């Protein structure tokens, strides 16, 4: 079986030529940036069909990032979950191990693609926003690899709580610029990166870290991250001779999730579940834009946003800095509305429990972001039959989070 070609009835042929996924997406940017995003789109269209571009991307993913990442059957976790499952229930739990990538998360897949595009366009200066610092580290990494100056915008609050990643970025030669406007977190870092871009349009390329922003970013980030789903699909077929019954991924802006989901969207028997961060609970402070938000316009796209009745953007909260964003990529908003993907949420406490469970049962310390997916996997696997397969994206490792987890568990380190 090969991946079906997108047909008129396909879920895989979005966005339209104006970057809309149904009513979502688009290009809501200042006029100064409009010619740039149009130019980026032109270059991306050419790159997408250029075998040399694809070959360079594949080569770097193999030899620099360490792809393909393994597909792993988590036998002990499966057994552990079955202990509390109803009779005959407890699906086999598998992981796509993107935490084994160079720099420890899926973020690097996208950064490799975008920096190749930047160089193709003759850009000589790179900017990016970061929350947890994972995308900042991945961007600093590719900038060091290709010798381009790198400026990372990071909310002052995140600079404080993610010191190890700040130091990593500096070691890699990037300049980290703390952002003190607004609420001092990821959305403000994104505002500041957009302000930089608008003032440096001639030489600067903005490497956006998730499948959001003005068209063509949601599309190109998805395409670069789709390596996750393409590999997983082929690996699952060759290992088990079948497709998984359900895919699960955590959602900040939605790049690891869309990367896993997209190649499977036309496999109608594969169910998909995106997990947002419910923080302290959906009735309290959280980061679940689909569950608790409404469609609106921010950062260049129309999508579900946490906001008040006047359209003022709300602060998100999650224990996981990478999920702490009040929006979501527009393709997820569309997939939710058409019902192809189901979305649910997991609280800080549930994610912390799943984090510890994976450490003890599998000897894998996950990042707090995929810990949210793992909590949902526990929940879902118990409802599924034993011969079914649930596959989650283990999109990052937990080294960056040990201080946060220690604090949450009341342990001094």
């Amino acid at each position: 079986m090969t991946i079906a070609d997108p047909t008129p009835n396909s879920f895989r042929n979005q966005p339209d030529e104006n970057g809309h996924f149904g009513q979502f997406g688009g290009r809501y940017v200042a006029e100064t940036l409009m010619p740039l995003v149009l130019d980026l789109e032109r270059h991306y269209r050419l790159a997408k069909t250029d075998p040399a571009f694809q070959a360079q991307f594949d080569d770097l993913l193999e030899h620099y990032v360490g792809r393909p990442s393994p597909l792993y059957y988590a036998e002990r976790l499966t057994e552990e979950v079955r202990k509390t499952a109803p009779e005959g229930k407890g699906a086999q739990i598998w992981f796509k191990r993107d935490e084994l990538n160079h720099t420890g998360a899926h973020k690097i897949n996208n950064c490799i693609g975008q920096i190749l595009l930047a160089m193709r366009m003759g850009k000589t200066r790179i900017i990016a926003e970061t929350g947890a610092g994972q995308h900042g580290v991945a961007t600093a990494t590719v900038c060091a690899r290709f010798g381009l100056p790198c400026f990372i915008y990071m909310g002052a609050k995140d600079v404080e709580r993610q010191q190890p990643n700040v130091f990593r970025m500096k070691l890699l030669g990037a300049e980290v610029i703390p952002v003190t406007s607004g609420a001092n977190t990821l959305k403000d870092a994104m505002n500041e990166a957009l302000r930089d871009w608008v003032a440096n349009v001639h030489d600067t390329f903005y490497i956006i870290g998730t499948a959001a922003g003005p068209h063509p970013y949601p599309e190109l980030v998805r395409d670069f991250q789709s390596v996750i789903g393409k590999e997983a699909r082929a690996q699952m077929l060759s290992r088990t001779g079948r497709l998984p019954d359900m895919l699960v991924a955590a959602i900040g802006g939605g790049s690891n999730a869309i990367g896993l989901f997209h190649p499977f969207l036309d496999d109608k028997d594969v169910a998909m579940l995106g997990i947002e961060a419910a923080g302290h609970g959906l009735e309290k402070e959280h980061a679940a834009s689909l569950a608790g938000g409404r469609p609106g316009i921010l950062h260049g796209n129309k999508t579900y946003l946490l906001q008040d009745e006047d359209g003022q953007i709300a602060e998100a909260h999650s224990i996981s800095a990478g999920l702490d964003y009040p929006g979501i990529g527009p393709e997820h908003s569309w997939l939710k509305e058409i019902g192809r993907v189901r979305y649910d949420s997991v609280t800080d406490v549930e994610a912390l429990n799943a984090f510890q469970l994976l450490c003890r049962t599998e000897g894998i310390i996950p990042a707090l972001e995929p810990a949210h997916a793992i909590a949902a996997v526990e929940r879902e696997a118990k409802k599924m039959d034993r011969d079914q397969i649930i596959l989650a994206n283990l999109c990052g490792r937990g080294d960056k989070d040990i201080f946060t987890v220690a604090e949450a568990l009341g342990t001094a380190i």
Partner: protein
Amino acid sequence: MTRLSAAFSKDHPALVTFITAGDGDTAANLDALVAGGADVIELGMPFTDPMADGPAIQEANIRSLGAGTTTADIFAIAAAFRARHPDTPLVLMGYANPMTIRGGEWFASECNKAGVDGVICVDIPPEEDAELGPLLRSAGIDLIRLATPTTDKARLPAVLDGASGFLYYVSVAGITGLQQAAQTSIDEAVARLKAYTDLPVAVGFGVRTPEQATNIARVADGVVVGSALVELVAQHGSNAAGTLQDYVASLKHAIVAARKA
């Protein structure tokens, strides 16, 4: 003739002044702008994420929202202004989300009821016009388009299609309140734009002083000053009106003198 076209048909270029709604004593400040000689008022709608603005206007947004300003308050300010000043055109400037969150129809109808003449939306380019443009136009509200140093010849027709009121030339590729453009680049850009449109061309971003206003007034139909006024509001809090009026009068004097010289 609309209030906006009347403002651009005087015997001098128009002085367009910007302040943020809900920052300081907005009613008194608006009166001061008019008393100082402003020909067009831009009233900023505060937004949590003003990504095209520099520090001065960002902070004004935060002060305003911190004081609890709502969209309803802004329309109340506009309606009261219209009652006090029947002839001075009022333009709302802001970001897409607060303008579209209740639907473009609602926004256009509120603008109409409050006597708003035009709308500038920073992050709705011509490509996304359907969001607001047709609804504003059918409510008789001008949608004011922006041209920038990156808007090339090929793009200009798209920008002008559906534009009315005036054309706002953003003179620097950047955010509000920081850099200023070289006068020669402004002269060239205005000449280029005027070859393509009969709409009045107003120049803004980075215009702070009477000297700059004079130079721009020699070539353009309007001069937009924002951050410099917002900074005065920041310095003088709820007693900014007197200082604002004096500063606006000095800008106006510079603009009127430019065409006489």
